[in-house]
């Protein structure tokens, strides 16, 4: 049965502005199906985004939405969550928005383990502003600011979130929309900070300079580099060159055991803050 996306969309804004075949549309669809899976009221959800191609996504969703400044989506989202802890906050971010300009906000939101869900659409470039290289552009690939090939090592967003203390971290590619839906659903249900990285194609800006200027070849490039996490664990480090490792990097149970090993209490930020309020009012 076809899913009725109209229920969650502002239909007067559709068709959207993304390029033909853009992966963000697939991620947006996975998000809408996940909303149906968790069964939240539309009025209880706030979508927050920064600047960029991905950050246009909340404009099409018929919930409470907020389009903020570049990189500061998580900051505004933290504010919403602290003011209304019983509401659900979801953040849409691109790779440049979340890891470059908003990199500091990203690691600190992970550290606080505040109950929000962050969907990072990683298309390896700054698509909206002309295809400059981003912290996730792989080594050797050409962009408009690295015309002879990129030499900057990349961020692994999942590893970064895991190390910083997020309680659910997963990565999937746009070629597997159903897997993406499963991970986003788990992330929404998780009490704590959840990071879902969706590796998407940007054939218009990134692909065109690397001989894959159409959506089909760009999506194939992603599919060819994809390695499941279980398989990657058995491989040697030098074999894991220019690959996308997909799977669930950290689930809630794993997180709890990890922190127990460090003899460190794990808490969700809004819960901890509620306890502080109670403590202060008691005197």
């Amino acid at each position: 049965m076809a899913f009725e996306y109209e229920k969650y969309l502002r239909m007067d804004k559709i068709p959207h502005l993304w390029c033909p075949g853009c992966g963000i549309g697939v991620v947006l669809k996975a998000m809408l199906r996940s909303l149906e899976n968790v069964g939240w009221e539309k009025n209880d959800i706030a979508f927050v985004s920064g600047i960029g191609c991905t950050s246009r996504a909340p404009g099409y969703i018929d919930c409470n939405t907020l389009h903020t400044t570049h990189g500061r989506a998580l900051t505004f989202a933290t504010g919403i969550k602290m003011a209304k802890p019983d509401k659900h906050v979801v953040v849409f971010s691109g790779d440049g928005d979340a890891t470059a300009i908003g990199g500091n906000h990203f690691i600190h939101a992970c550290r606080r383990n505040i109950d929000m869900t962050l969907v990072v659409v990683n298309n390896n470039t700054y698509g909206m502003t002309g295809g400059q290289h981003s912290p996730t552009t792989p080594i050797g690939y050409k962009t408009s600011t690295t015309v002879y090939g990129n030499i900057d090592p990349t961020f692994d967003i999942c590893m970064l979130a895991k190390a910083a203390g997020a309680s659910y971290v997963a990565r999937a590619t746009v070629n597997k929309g159903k897997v993406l839906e499963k991970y986003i659903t788990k992330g929404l249900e998780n009490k704590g900070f959840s990071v879902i990285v969706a590796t998407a194609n940007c054939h218009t800006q990134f692909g065109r300079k690397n001989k894959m200027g159409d959506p089909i070849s760009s999506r194939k490039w992603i599919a060819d580099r994809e390695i499941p996490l279980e398989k990657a664990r058995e491989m040697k480090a030098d074999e894991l060159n220019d690959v996308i490792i997909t799977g669930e990097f950290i689930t809630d149970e794993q997180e709890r055991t990890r922190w127990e090993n460090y003899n460190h209490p794990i808490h969700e930020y809004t819960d901890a803050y509620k306890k502080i309020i109670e403590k202060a009012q008691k005197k």
Partner: protein
Amino acid sequence: MSNKINIPENYERWEAEIKIGKKEDTVTIGYWRDGCKGCGICADICPKKVWEIIEAKDKWNGQVVRVIDATNCIKCMLCEVHCPDFCIKIY
């Protein structure tokens, strides 16, 4: 989700009787031509070659898709899930 077919009037429609394994079923494919940007992902991802890319002069890259043979459809929903433009509905 209800079993009701909910395809808007501005969608192109194809209906067919299909066989999934030994089970008999019917399929209704809806396609919104005005919203389609002609990326061709549906034609590429379909395992049964239900979709075909055709020429269209009114689109930016000169192509749209159409259903060539709806009886081949196995309702795997890959095109419906991966269409970035909300243009395909399958019931």
